[in-house]
């Protein structure tokens, strides 16, 4: 039970273009198909901490499936969003995985992910195109989804929670025509431990943020006992956040149990803070 609660706080959403790119990841994170009839195939694990959608190829699909996954999975503002897939590259080594730290498209829109995990993975820039490009000798990474995924994901969370990783599958000396399903599965498989390492950073990130941002448990108890206006609810939440640092839930309930209405509750909590002297040798 405790473990379940702990895991629930982690929240990761994957957007992957092809089934063969996703297969190893689905296995590793024990995700299964949610329902045959969804607009885009959606997978999740039992704990509902990891969800994945297969977007198909192209920017429109990537954007649409990202928002679809957001809605279906009820992702929070502190969910980590991951896009993993293969990419062409004129600079990277075949089979290597790279973190993307600059994304641009043919409309010259450029964006930059923020605060990447400390990792041994090298970083590269990603060009997202609408049509397949054959001459990519001068480009670091090329795909057909990344920029759309990033644009939509950055409307759903802050940039620190978004990550794109690309595995070099073709390039000047590896013809794309030689790529097949088996090779793609193999490429992802051989990078799985690196992917997992990065993902554990994003799991932790969302878990921490969920913990920090969650309304104090006692907030729900108090707001169901008294009627608070919208402004008062914000006041109550802020006061409880501050109080919980030095005051247990039982003490807080004891403090307000005689209060006749919500204003008295707010006053009582305010007075408790007013009387607090921080003991700096304890912190």
């Amino acid at each position, binding site marked *: 039970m405790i473990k379940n609660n702990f895991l629930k706080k982690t929240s990761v959403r994957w957007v992957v273009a092809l089934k063969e790119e996703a297969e190893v990841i689905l296995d590793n994170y024990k995700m299964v198909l949610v329902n045959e009839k969804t607009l885009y195939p959606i997978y999740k694990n039992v704990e509902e901490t990891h969800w994945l959608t297969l977007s198909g190829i192209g920017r429109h699909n990537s954007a649409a499936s990202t928002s679809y996954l957001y809605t279906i999975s009820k992702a929070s503002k502190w969910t980590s969003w991951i896009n993993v897939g293969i990419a062409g590259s004129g600079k990277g080594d075949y089979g290597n995985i790279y973190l993307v730290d600059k994304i641009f498209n043919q409309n010259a829109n450029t964006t930059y992910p923020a605060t990447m995990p400390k990792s041994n993975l090298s970083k590269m820039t990603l060009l997202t195109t609408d049509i397949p490009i054959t001459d990519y000798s001068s480009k670091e990474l090329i795909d057909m989804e990344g920029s759309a995924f990033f644009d939509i994901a950055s409307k759903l969370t802050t940039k620190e929670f978004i990550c794109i990783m690309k595995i070099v599958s073709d390039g000047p000396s590896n013809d794309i025509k030689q790529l097949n399903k088996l090779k793609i599965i193999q490429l992802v498989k051989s990078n799985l431990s690196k992917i997992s390492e990065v993902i554990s950073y994003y799991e932790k990130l969302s878990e921490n943020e969920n913990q920090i941002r969650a309304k104090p448990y006692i907030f729900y108890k108090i707001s169901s006992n008294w009627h608070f206006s919208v402004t008062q609810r914000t006041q109550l939440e802020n006061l409880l956040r501050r109080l919980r640092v030095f005051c247990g839930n039982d003490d807080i309930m004891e403090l307000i149990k005689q209060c006749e209405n919500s204003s008295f509750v707010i006053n009582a909590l305010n007075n408790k803070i007013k009387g607090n002297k921080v*003991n700096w040798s304890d912190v």
Partner: protein
Amino acid sequence: MIETIYIEKKIKNHPRTKFILKKFKKARVLEIDKYAEIFNKRNQNFRIQKANPDLILAHKNDGFVLPAPEGFGIGSSENFYFSHMYNCIYDCRYCFLQGMFSSANYVIFVNFEDFDTSIKNVINKNINSKITFFSGYDCDSLALENVTGFAKHILPLFQQYPEVDIEFRTKSIQREPFMSIEPMKNVIMAYSLMPDLMSSSLDNKVPSISKRIQVISDLALRGWKIGLRFDPLIHGEDWKSLYENLLEKVYNSIPLESIHSVSVGPLRFPKKMFKDILKLYPDEPLFTSPLASSKGVVSYDEKIEEEMSSFCKNLTLKYLDNSQIFRCYA
């Protein structure tokens, strides 16, 4: 360890850009058009960025020198500030930068010469007034001196204007370039201090109070003028004895004749900023203090503020003249 450096294309060949880049040989360098592409965009999280900030080298276009907020001065009739950098390598929990910027990346403006021009213009326009400039309002003025070299650059300008004061406010223990050059009468080396117990909880990544006092003492002995900034004043159990110990220690460690001024400043946040900071650090003990909001400002109540300020002022009066003590309200 800086992992990524973003450089505005416009200044990629600037000698100062090259100088700074040499200090971070392993960093990945990305060219950008404008620093605003990376810095302070919406949808960023200051706390998460603070764990691993990147560096941005940029060109500042305007607003080089600005009037200091009211209540910031130390005796001059005209007060101005300039910031060659945004953000700070330290992480003080009461810092207003964490509420002001949504990004914790460091921005260094490399066109120092444009600061020079603006400073000279301001001096010429206020030729009949007593002026003080404050270096590094949006950063710590010296914490990254070994990377930027800003103080080293700007000091010769103030050598030309001995009647104009400049204050470097810092929590760093940076000694250079000050130990290597002749002390200047119009330079104030100002140090923010609070009792050790509070500092070790609130001044994250900052040199300890005793190390700061040691540097203050060294610079004073070398002949530099010292500013002591008990700002912000922090309330809590035993605050009186904590501040008494600190003030006694400071006044007994440095030559009193080297002290230019002392200022005491209450802890204050604009209301909106406080809300944002509280969201970032809801479990921070500082915010369990008796802080309340009034007229758009969150602070200790007036009685506490007054009691703390007077207490520190009265202790200081045992050592210094009233004319050297200022209340800071900015």
